[in-house]
């Protein structure tokens, strides 16, 4: 209540931003919630700029015009081929665009909490602050799984597993801000599944023409572990002709490829704690991020962990906005004096 009064008085718009490898979202205190795919594209030359009619494209629009733009997925290592400054510019553009989507009033100050992948934050914190601070009046940066935990009120005895595109981040909450020992990052995540699926499909259908973007779409539409009753057939061109392909087995194998590392890291993280807390944490495991949408993943993990005693795994309701909602909650709970120096 107090915070709301301050918000009214000072005309501040609080925003929570989830800056993800694959998707980025914003939740604002004016109830706006928006998301884009974390792609930025700049027209390659004057002609493409004339054709596109914009100086910069975002998300799916950038992807759809990828042949005529310099495409950048800024928080992904290895994809950027044309220098690093571009990725910093791309982060800036994404934040600017997300804030525009939140439609702040012209005189409003923007106070933002930005959640970024845990590994990105370790070594890029200043770059991220620099990229974001131009677009906001005050800023705090946190890790994505922590933002999710805060938003869901999982402040004590819980484990958040954020399965993103580039990384899977683990974060144990035990009543304080998680230290480095409470967090771990592995690279078995969405992009890894894409790579596996691409390789399995290439092996099974060597004459079919598909690219990594198509493979990503197959994964997002059909991903599952263990068993599902429905058949999975997709259309892939062979010698120019559209041909239906059965990809069910490949999708399952690719999705299950991340599970051993996921289970091993989960047990390793929990085992670090006192046995009394281990039981509590095991009963409060939450899956977040796009990976939590893989059908059957919750049951798979829960059954695998049962070997170590009873446990309960749940999934966040809205993985797309869980991070940005948590970041917004943190922004709104932050005392005004904390915003001043930042």
């Amino acid at each position, binding site marked *: 209540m107090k915070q709301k009064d301050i918000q009214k008085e000072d005309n501040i718009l609080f925003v929570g931003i989830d800056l993800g490898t694959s998707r980025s979202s914003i939740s604002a205190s004016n109830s706006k919630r928006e998301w884009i795919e974390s792609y930025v594209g700049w027209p390659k030359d004057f002609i493409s700029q004339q054709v596109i009619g914009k100086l910069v494209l975002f998300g799916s629009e950038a992807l759809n015009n990828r042949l005529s733009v310099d495409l950048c997925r800024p928080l992904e290592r290895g994809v950027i081929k044309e220098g690093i400054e571009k990725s*910093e510019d791309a982060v800036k553009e994404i934040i600017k665009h997300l804030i525009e989507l939140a439609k702040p009033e012209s005189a409003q100050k923007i106070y933002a909490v930005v959640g970024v992948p845990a590994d990105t934050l*370790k*070594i890029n*914190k200043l*770059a991220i602050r620099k990229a974001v601070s131009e677009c906001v009046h005050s800023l705090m940066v946190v890790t994505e799984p922590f933002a999710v935990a805060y938003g869901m009120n999982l*402040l004590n005895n819980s484990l958040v597993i954020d399965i993103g595109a580039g990384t899977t981040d683990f974060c144990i909450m035990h009543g304080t*801000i998680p230290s480095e020992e409470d967090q*771990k990052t*592995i690279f078995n995540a969405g992009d890894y599944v894409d790579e596996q699926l691409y390789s399995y499909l290439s092996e099974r259908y060597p004459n079919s023409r598909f690219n990594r973007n198509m493979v990503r779409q197959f994964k997002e539409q059909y991903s599952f572990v263990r068993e599902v009753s429905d058949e999975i057939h997709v259309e892939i061109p062979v010698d120019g002709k559209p041909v239906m392909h059965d990809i069910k087995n490949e999708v399952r194998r690719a999705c299950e490829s991340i599970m051993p590392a996921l289970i091993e890291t989960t047990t390793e993280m929990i085992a670090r704690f006192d046995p009394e807390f281990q039981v509590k944490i095991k009963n409060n495991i939450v899956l977040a991020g796009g990976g939590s949408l893989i059908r059957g993943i919750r049951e798979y993990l829960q059954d695998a962990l049962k070997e170590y005693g009873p446990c309960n795994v749940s999934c966040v309701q809205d993985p797309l906005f869980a991070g940005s909602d948590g970041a917004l909650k943190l922004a709104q709970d932050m005392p005004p004096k*904390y915003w001043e120096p930042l």
Partner: protein
Amino acid sequence: MISILLRKRELKVREAIIRGVYEENLKIIGKYNGIISKERSFSLKKMFLTFVISVAAIFMHVNYLSPSSFFPENQVTANIIIQRPVTLPVDPDNPSDYRTFISNQKVPLSRMFGLGVRTIMIDPGHGGADTGTMGKMGTKEKDITLDIAKRLRDRLKKYGHYNVLMTREQDMTIPLNKRVELAGLSKADLFISVHLNYLPSKPINIIETYYFGPPSDAKTLKLAEQENAGSQYGLSDFKEMIEKIGETLKLQESKEFAASIQKNLFLNIKKETGYAYDFGIKRAPFVVLLGVDVPAVLAEVSCLSNREEEMKLNTESHRENVAHYLEAGILDYLNKGETRNEAKRHTERR
């Protein structure tokens, strides 16, 4: 009543977490006043261990092949021009002549016998529970070294003819003996360990590169002690490894390799930032260098105690540049010094 108490407790937890977030962000922008920089402790046990290594190394230094050719009194800096090959006459019937030949030989033995480099092992310093040194903003050595090492790996892989491996690809604890073991198992031909320096008393950025040998000064000895912590080697292991140090090939090559890395790192960082100091190549009894059988160096690529440098290390572009300079140093060494020094020019050529 219980619910009120629970609510109060939850509020307290929430407040503590919010304060934690605030302090973390103050650290990032360098406004946090708490003591966060971590200096390494120098325990008696570690001092003893270092003393043993140093004594053993000096023992070897006296007993093995001509010491003057391996550990010259004057420190070699990156700026000097490395002398070109000078061959000496050898009497094939006199075995002692071979020893003289080897010890005085200015031509690296690997080149004399046409030995190539196929596998390069990059060792990102520290990792996991061993954070290494830490800057005032909270930047950890282990994170920066891992990132630079990955960038260096990607750069070297692009050439297509090197098998580039890393001792760790994630934030994990790997004892020094394991790193040495990995280099041996993978049959690495070249080994480079990437580290960051910390000078609490001076706000400067120094660049220095080490190869194995007795320490040249007290500071180097202390640094070796810090880097050797957690090696998990026993004294008998040390003895065995030190006996191996007579391997001339490794010594010759490591020194030249160190000079090449140092030259490329310093010249380019100085050009880029304008404030780097050249501390040259040095000898030090680092376990990770001693245990590896092939040319091996430990590069202190930057100085985390320097605030400006810490800020720069937090940008991708600077880390990419450092990886680039290391790449140039490695290629310069592999291409017998024919590669031009400046990494930027090197890129233009590709």
